[in-house]
């Protein structure tokens, strides 16, 4: 059936057994994003080690697409350089928005290519992008806080 294109086994696996889930400390930047149409929520924390993503941790409530996207985000950006992480963020965004000509770069996006089918479901694109947009925000905040202080432990950002 057609929904196999959306509900790939890889996506369901990430949903049922998410990678890197749970908010961790210390972190340098944090973002909380909400999808107002469905109420899905995601929190992303980013810790920087010089030019590298030292840790990206996540938590949230939402559909399989948004929660699996957070799990894949962890796999794709954790331990990468900031530059590399942003390249992957752009590639994932372009794929889900249908701007990559239907030819996702498997080497770059790994399990993330399972989300290629989302492009055919306009109402679900936001779900797949929710953690990635939060990641971008958290990263900007981490970079800003890195300019003027140490990583946070406890409390809220």
């Amino acid at each position, binding site marked *: *059936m*057609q*929904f196999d294109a*959306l*509900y790939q086994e890889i996506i*369901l696996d990430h949903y049922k057994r998410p990678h890197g889930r749970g908010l961790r400390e210390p972190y340098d930047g944090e973002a909380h994003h909400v999808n107002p*149409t*469905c*109420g*899905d*929520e995601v929190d992303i924390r980013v810790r920087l080690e010089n030019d590298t993503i030292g840790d990206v941790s996540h938590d949230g*409530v*939402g*559909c*399989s*697409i948004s*929660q699996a996207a957070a799990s894949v985000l962890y796999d794709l950006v954790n331990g990468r350089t900031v530059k590399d992480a942003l390249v992957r963020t752009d590639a994932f965004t372009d794929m889900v928005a249908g701007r990559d000509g239907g030819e996702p770069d498997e080497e770059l996006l790994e399990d993330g290519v399972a989300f290629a089918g989302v492009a055919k*479901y306009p109402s*679900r694109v936001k*779900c797949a992008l929710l953690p990635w947009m939060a990641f971008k925000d958290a990263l900007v905040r981490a970079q800003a806080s890195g300019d003027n202080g140490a990583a946070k432990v406890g409390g809220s950002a």
Partner: protein
Amino acid sequence: MDTITPSAPRVSGERSMNGVPALDVATVRADFPIFERQIHGRPLVYLDSANTSQKPHVVIDALRTHYELHNANVARSVHTLGTEATLAYEGARAKVAAFIGAAGPDEVVFAKNSTEAINLVAYAFGNASATPATSDPRFVLRPGDEVVISEMEHHSNIVPWQLLCERTGATLKWFGITDDGRLDLSRIDEVITPRTKVVSFVHVSNILGTMNDPTPIVRRAHDVGALVMIDGSQSVPQMPVDVTELGADFLAFTGHKMLGPTGIGVLWGRSELLDAMPPFLGGGSMIETVTMAKTTYLPPPARFEAGTPPIAEAIALGTAIDYLSRLDMHAVAAHERAMTRYALDALPTVTGLRIYGPPDAESRGGTMSFALDGVHPHDVGQILDEFGVEVRVGHHCARPVCARFGVAAMTRSSFYVYTSTADIDELVHGLEHVRKVFS
């Protein structure tokens, strides 16, 4: 002008216990062209009527007939077409008035939808409060005055009152919801007090399906001198609603949930109150005399219908009302009750399914929201769509209700005159598949 004789009776020979005719669903469905189409190669199973209803041929034809034969602006033309359009538009107003038992057509104000109808009343309070010396004191809010709503409201019956309270300094209060999804009226005398100026609440919940008894709320509100508004968006389409029996001062509902087109809604108000209310929107068609310095306004309902109204939509709403009246609203209500009872039995056969709201059909309208253990409503809705089963998922514009039950979203099925038990069986079948995908 467009009376359509049904080719077959829409009620079957069968009668329920209390003598109400039963709807013949197969005949009713044949009146709705959309049921000819397929979704992903499967027959359409439309369980989203609380969101918007489907439209019968006669309503679609009414729109077309108006534009093909009678199109002109209303209330300002001496020519033949203008006269026909005006007669049809005002005729629709009279049909609405009769349908809800209003004292007369002048108590019916056409608005864009329920949202606009509620805003119209909220703005009457806001505008009156801006000029307290010259306004009817019943509409003047001051700091310390109270506005009462409930946690069960659609956002359209929350936000206008929040905005009003922000503008006037009045305090917003509300009734909570009990665990089984009813309004908690246990502290009614503390919620509605002599400081209360207006109480606005939902008749049938769009998310829990709860059918609220207006009587105790209306009685208490009137005892303390407050005005009462009822959101009838979900009740007027599916049960006989008589404004005299309701006892409220204002009733809002919308055409598109009762077989009519989008873009047309209704505010009913007691004429004496509408008379006392300042205008909402200013413009053409609502004025008596305009000078550059000062304008005087027409009496209601024209006072509240600035600009060219949705003429064809109003006329087609009149046609929808004719259609519903021919089905008999008692039969419609009995059908909703029968579908609700069937769904209350059928849905819990799905493992891990939990229904929100009252457990008995007698306390519910034809709307049923539920949770499926471990599966997010978005995923439920997406997979059901592949089976041609159309349900709504999300917070249903009633986020406080979701928060009350500790969830971000719910899956909602809702029934109407064309819903059959086979539709509910398809829903159950689809839900079993959802379980398999996520097992």
